[in-house]
């Protein structure tokens, strides 16, 4: 597989930072960065990462199945993640999630027909003191209200 020069440089660094013979350690970081570029963890990517790290593809598969941020199906261009865990729940996180479902017209882990958005109800993301919080891809948004969420989605649509 060919990747961007930035990703290739990251891969090269990842294979160097762990002790000699322990390149299996690079599997998860490689997958995390590669899926951003590829769109998801594809079969081809699994085999490529396995080859580069010198492990069996099965050893890559087993981590893909374990970590919740590794996705085998493409997400929307903007992956909206709403936290409903306890701190967010107490200040409207669940209502926010319900609102997001209506606004986007999709359910948990579903993608809109145009591929622009996907939605996920997520566990605590570490924004408890500034709840309710969401993440869109890797960006945090704090003190989110249904109105702020609608505005954000509108703005993201306009970016197209």
């Amino acid at each position: 597989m060919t990747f961007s020069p930035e990703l290739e440089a990251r891969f090269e660094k990842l294979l160097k930072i762990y002790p000699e013979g322990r390149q299996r350690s690079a599997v998860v970081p490689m997958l995390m960065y590669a899926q951003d570029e590829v769109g998801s963890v594809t079969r081809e990517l699994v085999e490529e990462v396995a080859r580069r790290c010198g492990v069996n593809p099965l050893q890559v598969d087993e981590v893909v199945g374990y970590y919740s941020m590794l996705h085998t199906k493409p997400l929307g261009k903007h992956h909206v993640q709403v936290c409903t865990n306890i701190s967010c729940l107490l200040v409207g996180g669940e209502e926010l999630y319900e609102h997001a479902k209506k606004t986007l017209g999709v359910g948990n882990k579903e993608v809109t027909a145009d591929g622009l958005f996907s939605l996920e109800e997520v566990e605590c993301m570490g924004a408890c003191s500034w709840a309710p919080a969401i993440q869109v891809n890797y960006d945090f948004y704090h003190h989110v209200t249904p109105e702020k969420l609608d505005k954000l989605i509108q703005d993201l649509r306009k970016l197209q």
Partner: protein
Amino acid sequence: MLYNEPNPLETKVLTRRFGIPNSADVATYVEHGGYQAFLKAAKMAPEKIVDEVKISNLRGRGGAGFPTGLKWSFVPRTSPKPKYIICNADESEPGTCKDRLLMEYDPHQLIEGMMIGGLAVDAHKGYIYIRGEYRYLITMMEKAIDDAYAAGWLGSNIQGTGFDFDCYVHTGAGAYECGEETALLDSIEGKRGVPRMKPPFPAVAGAWASPTLLNNVETFSAVPSIIRDGGAAFAALGTPKNGGTRLVCLSGHVNRPGVYEIPLGYPMLKFIEEFGGGVRGGKKLKAVIPGGSSCPVLLASECDIAMDYDTLAKAGSMLGSGGMVVIDEETCMVKAALRIMRFYAHESCGWCIPCREGTTWLRKMLQRVHNGQGIASDIPLIGELSKNMLGRTFCALGDAAAMPTISIVEKFREEFEAHLDGRPCPFEHKHEMALA
């Protein structure tokens, strides 16, 4: 920009540089006394460094509260194997959001703390395991590390001390279980993050089967202050056996949620009033989760206590990770218990049966009760099932799921009873009104 206004009542030790422009820059850090503790430590005997940490009464800020100096002393310094420093930045205990700030506003303090750990145990490589969701922090931490190399604070023969230290970032990929230290070690080795049998402890056989010193972000971040000002000065900030300050992440039904640094032993109710501005909307306090969702909840009447590890333990709960969740009188505690259990059931790694099965069954039972489909015998059964998990699981996740559940079902039994026999949740309409 800071996420919340600091409070003038804070005791700012670890957060002293928060709010200074460009506080994450290496030049700013050095200008404000940064890396001086490392230079001081480089002239100290390693045993003396460990002694200072012991004297400081610093206890692990990740949740377990284990004495840090003692943990450092367990690493066999003279082992011929390479030794590693690993920082647990997998912050994922619900209610906890402090390590984020320590990395965002003062990444060099963390790097310096890890370097001092390296001096103490003769380790020359450090890894910061950051949860995958904190991608922006991974980028910031990588920049801080690059800057430290460029300024000569990382690499070979650092500032002519003869000490070599390299530091790297490792990204997680979304798994609460990886915050458990042995699961984190499996995870950093490229495997599924499932816990290991102890012993051997990580100090002896940790990452890549080598002696490993593993601490939380806040724990390492406290170390430069301890070395600079002495362990005794840090200890004196807190109470006996509970040294120093800690960052408390206040969330839930308070007027001013935020992360605040306070000395250990600060009175809890005073903290909620003076820092949090009291319960919002003038409502009454119902309960407090003192240190992350795995802690047993305290009734409002049990909150007139000091916030230190031992006092909280005496009160039947824990200081945990510093994630304090304040709950008002209009909250349905069955729903709170259900949401907490949903989390642990989702995050159970499935490695051992009591946790995998127990959390799933408890989630189902709590859902049933909350839906109004419960029967009277469900209530004692929820307690019994939880108690059956306690101490019978491979790692602390089973306990983490059981402890809040047991406390809620025991302290709020009447709320469970009010949901039985097809009755709707008595708090639902109040909740809707509060949000309207």
